[in-house]
């Protein structure tokens, strides 16, 4: 007899809390805001050393990959905890792209050798689909001509550090293409910590892995559901920092955080973060059990983006002048939150998906 749980497990296990503590320790040591800000304007916006520490040192690149392929055989629940911490620190590492999006696409295709490479952290993968694409939405393909790939793909997150690109082609296949066979041109992105690039293929050789449509759909669904945890991390991080600052900042001979007009705004934000935590946990749990996952992901994404953006915008306003400076890290969170509100489908796109899923049809 199979027993189906009627309610998702919305808590964090002891192991998940231990994982969180380990990731947070590493980020506290290796990912301070000043360093991230300085890096955004350097030639190497990605922190590859930090990525190695997370991916290889801690083995987190392979959480979703079975142990037999060198992964950890963990679930989306653990990945969600890692993403909460990466969101909180606005860490410039290709975790969502390589360990979630590319990994899920390879899992769909059953490409064991490449999964093993990504899981070990030896290679960074990127799904060559525009970051704005919602699960189930149409995506751009390249042309397959005489056995090689031709075309241009824009808005590809973290392509600049990818070793391996997973490229959908017009024959319906998903192709593995090595980065050295394509031209990657950085775009100027709103979110400086998740750089975007144009990928140009001019007769690039590729290895056909399987059908693109189901692989891309699976990858984008998992990515969207887990992005809610990154958004939770952003929102909780800026709320915590703003509360701390407003207890310390004094005007009119009082801590600014004692004024009721501001306290109410912070309390409202706290409520939104509490709600987002439940929605993000539900999505991560649903992805790990594949029970009701489409619905849980759509609910989490329809809720998460407005909360993360609201939290970052309020944080800036409540920090006031200092929050408007390049030096203060609030803008990193704001830019990430705003970019995340478009990434993997807007809240509106996910509400439209929900209308179908729960039969609340448009007029």
């Amino acid at each position: 007899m199979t027993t189906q749980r009627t309610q998702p497990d919305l808590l964090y296990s002891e192991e998940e809390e231990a994982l969180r503590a380990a990731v947070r320790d590493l980020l506290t040591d290796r990912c301070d805001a000043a360093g991230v800000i300085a890096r955004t304007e350097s030639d190497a916006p990605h922190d590859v050393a930090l990525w190695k520490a997370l991916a290889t040192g801690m083995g987190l690149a392979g959480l979703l990959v079975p142990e037999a392929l060198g992964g950890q055989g963990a679930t989306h629940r653990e990945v969600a905890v890692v993403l909460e911490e990466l969101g909180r620190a606005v860490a410039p590492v290709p975790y969502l792209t390589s360990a979630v999006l590319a990994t899920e696409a390879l899992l769909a295709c059953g490409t064991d050798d490449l999964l093993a490479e990504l899981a070990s952290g030896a290679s960074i993968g990127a799904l060559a689909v525009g970051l704005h694409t919602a699960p189930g939405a149409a995506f751009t393909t390249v042309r397959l001509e005489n056995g090689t790939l031709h075309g241009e793909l824009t808005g590809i997150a973290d392509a600049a550090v990818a070793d391996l690109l997973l490229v959908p082609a017009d024959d319906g296949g998903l192709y593995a293409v090595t980065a050295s066979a394509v031209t990657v041109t950085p775009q100027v992105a709103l979110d400086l910590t998740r750089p975007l690039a144009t990928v140009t293929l001019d007769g690039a050789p590729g290895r056909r892995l399987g059908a693109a449509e189901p692989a891309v759909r699976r990858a984008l669904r998992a990515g969207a559901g887990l992005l809610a945890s990154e958004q939770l991390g952003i929102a909780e991080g800026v709320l915590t920092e703003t509360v701390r600052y407003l207890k310390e900042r004094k005007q009119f001979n009082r801590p600014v955080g004692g004024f009721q007009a501001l306290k109410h705004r912070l309390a409202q934000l706290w409520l939104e973060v509490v709600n987002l935590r439940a929605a993000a946990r539900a999505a991560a749990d649903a992805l790990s059990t594949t029970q009701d996952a489409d619905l849980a992901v759509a609910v989490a994404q329809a809720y998460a983006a407005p909360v993360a953006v609201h939290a970052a915008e309020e944080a800036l306003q409540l920090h006031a002048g200092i929050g408007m400076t390049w030096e203060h890290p609030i803008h990193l969170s704001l830019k990430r939150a705003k970019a995340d509100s478009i990434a993997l489908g807007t809240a509106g796109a996910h509400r439209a998906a929900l209308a179908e899923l729960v039969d609340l049809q448009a007029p």
Partner: protein
Amino acid sequence: MTDTAELQRRTAELLAAHPPTTTDRLDFLRARFDAGLAWVHYPEGLGGLGAPRSLQAVVDAALEAVGAPDNDPRRIGIGLGMAAPTILRYGTEEQKRRFLRPLWTGEEVWCQLFSEPGAGSDLAALGTRAVREGEDWVVNGQKVWTSSAHVARWAILIARTDPDVPKHAGITYFICDMTDPGVEVRPLRQITGEAEFNEVFLTDVRIPDARRLGEIGDGWRVAQTTLNNERVAIGGMRLPREGGMIGPVAKTWRERPELRTHELHQRLLKLWVEAEVARLTGERLRQQLTVGQPGPEGAGMKLGFARLNQEISGLEVELLGEEGLLYEDWTMRRPELVDFVGRDAGYRYLRAKGNSIEGGTSEILLNIVAERVLGLPAEPRTDKDVAWKDLAR
């Protein structure tokens, strides 16, 4: 140790000795109380066994399975949710033995005499006076927003016993006999047309000192137990998906495509998502309680629930269009139960307005979240060191 097996054994014993099919309802409930199966986390002899609260579900499930009668908790919510925990914590042994059993079985209904016309959010400013005369206290004043007062046998009451000290220090907590000739209950009609609540006028009501709960002047602290339990009760109901106010709106949307507009569709989907997320938050809170890690999340449940109910019921009235112009019936009624759902969308819309007022206004709850959860400083106070009699009014 009281574990699941032990509770199942005791429940089976109760059912064998008092078969529900052949036992009078009240006799069964009394026997259940005496067997310690009423609320298993209460002490032995007071309806419980000192067991973990989470094990109550074992007893409830076993009794429900055989169709045993329950104590109709909706009818006696104030007694179960507010009076009982306060009596348990602050009552004398004699008070606990006298009051808890008929409270739990529902033989005696309880109401709450806290709010006054001049003391709402600032409840500690209340002016109902209790003056000591020999072994009695003589109480005079007016209370308001009292649900169940017209059916209640007893009330939990807070009154001012010392006007010469700051407001929080001069309050004492009593158990008031609602059959005392000085107690007059008048229905208070509300915007729905009904009178769910009452005004209660207290004129020379005599309360023996033996019905004081806690120390003289300690009533504010005692009342915190009552109020904290009230908020848990208001925000903590378990619901299935679409189980709350969103249910009737979604049903109307599905059944009546002619009412749909694009603008309403966007608002409906947004509120549907928020209702589902609020449901998940409630579920997460329950899971935290089950594993014995209550989080501060409970403080926010009522806030979210109030706003959602108001927005959803407002949308429902608009969705109905021409029908939204109508209201089923304004006849003054005096229902025994609080009812948020009622008969039609208009009722739901109007009743939901109370959700952000009753049990602590949303503004006060936001202060509580800001100060107790986020640790933000309190506003400067001008009332803390002033005698109650000298406060502005």
